[in-house]
């Protein structure tokens, strides 16, 4: 396929962006980008593209929109690399830009603003354990489509990308308690939408004092 690269999923595992060595490498790349180094820019782009493409495609359901947001994000990275002072992790800085771009894309595009049809039934679950995880993921993606965008983003940043509460609050530009509240409501809504996923009702469990503990 001309214009595409065949990437073996087994050789392009997600970078361990939380390790100090990879963070240091990314800081070095950003400083080279600030000096106009295109090779460094391409390397940083490659490190983030897959992660962002999955995150944003799941969010928007459209790869072309996801690609637009990724490129808007890295356009800013290219132009503002000199402003990065290392006060946060590079991944938090980049995801913060991506978050704002994704939110703007939602606001400016009614085609994405609309949540999925709540009447549409989620895909059926099978009893076959070998493909159950994948179908569970389809269910979750369906359920995420029903959530308000801020809650959806909080869920993805926490469970999919593994950011801490403080990092999510930096990325989303809101207090830590707001992040917790968004996740609490997202979880409650997910269970309401997808009762077959099981789990304890957050209302029952979350509001009950520790009588059992």
């Amino acid at each position: 396929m001309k214009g595409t690269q065949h990437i073996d999923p087994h050789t392009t595992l997600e970078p361990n962006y939380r390790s100090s060595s990879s963070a240091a490498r990314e800081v070095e790349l950003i400083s080279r980008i600030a000096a106009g180094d295109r090779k460094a820019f391409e390397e940083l782009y490659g490190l983030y593209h897959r992660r962002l493409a999955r995150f944003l495609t799941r969010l928007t359901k459209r790869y072309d929109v996801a690609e637009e947001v990724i490129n808007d994000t890295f356009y800013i990275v290219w132009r503002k690399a000199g402003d990065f002072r290392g006060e946060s992790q590079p991944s938090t800085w980049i995801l913060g830009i991506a978050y704002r771009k994704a939110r703007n894309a939602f606001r400016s595009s009614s085609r994405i603003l609309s949540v999925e049809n709540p009447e549409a039934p989620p895909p059926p679950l099978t009893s076959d354990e070998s493909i159950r995880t994948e179908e569970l993921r389809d269910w979750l993606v369906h359920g995420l489509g029903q959530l308000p965008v801020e809650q959806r983003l909080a869920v993805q940043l926490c469970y999919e990308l593994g950011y801490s509460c403080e990092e999510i609050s930096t990325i989303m530009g809101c207090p830590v308690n707001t992040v917790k509240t968004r996740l609490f409501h997202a979880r409650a809504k997910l269970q309401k939408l997808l009762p077959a996923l099981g789990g304890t009702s957050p209302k029952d469990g979350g509001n009950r004092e520790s009588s059992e503990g």
Partner: protein
Amino acid sequence: MIATGDPASHEEAWLSLPWLASGRLSQAERDKIEPHVRTCTACREELAFQRLLCNALTEPDRVTYAPGPSFRKLMDRIDGSSPRTRPTLEPQRGARRTGASIHRPSLWRPPGLAWAASFILMLGLAGVIMTLRQTTNPSYTTRSDVATGAPNVLHIAFHRSVTVGEQAQVLRANGAHIVEGPDSVGVFGIAPGLETSGDIPPERLSRQLRTLSAHLRADPRVRWVEPVPGDDSPGDAQVSTSRGP
């Protein structure tokens, strides 16, 4: 996240469960909430559910996103909108020559009526070049830049309304898996089954590809499927173009 010292209350612990599930709590935070979670049935059940959520969302995707075409688009945008020259490790020789030629005074200036003659000559040359281009280039254009590809790979595009989950479902139902893409226009390269093409006799592989493309073309969610490069089956090519973009 949680003030250290006293054991966490049920509500504190409950609100921190997402990060206990994702492994992003500090040791101090874990020491604070884990004693409660161990003895609280509701928190344990909720933690189990949240771990399920983590596993489902971090499971590797069947779709592989290729960064190359997107990166080239971005660089075109950067080069197009940024007139200032940034220092690079690899100096752009072409750009430097262009820059130099802008500032260098032209050595030849046609005098008087020679301007008109030069203009007419240029028009004539442009006409000749256009005619040559029309006779040597095909009159059709494709919407994708797919010209060549790996052997034994089908190229497929779905309708825009089809979600990524549905795409994976269609491919899974037909026993296909993604080996390339998507490229900048959403075209995937797919192959049948999970066996490597080297292990299958060419005739059998060819049959599998034909069957797979026939099944996929029958699916209304599929926009088009291209035949295998080099496949001279006229039927395949005809069907492909009839469903083409």
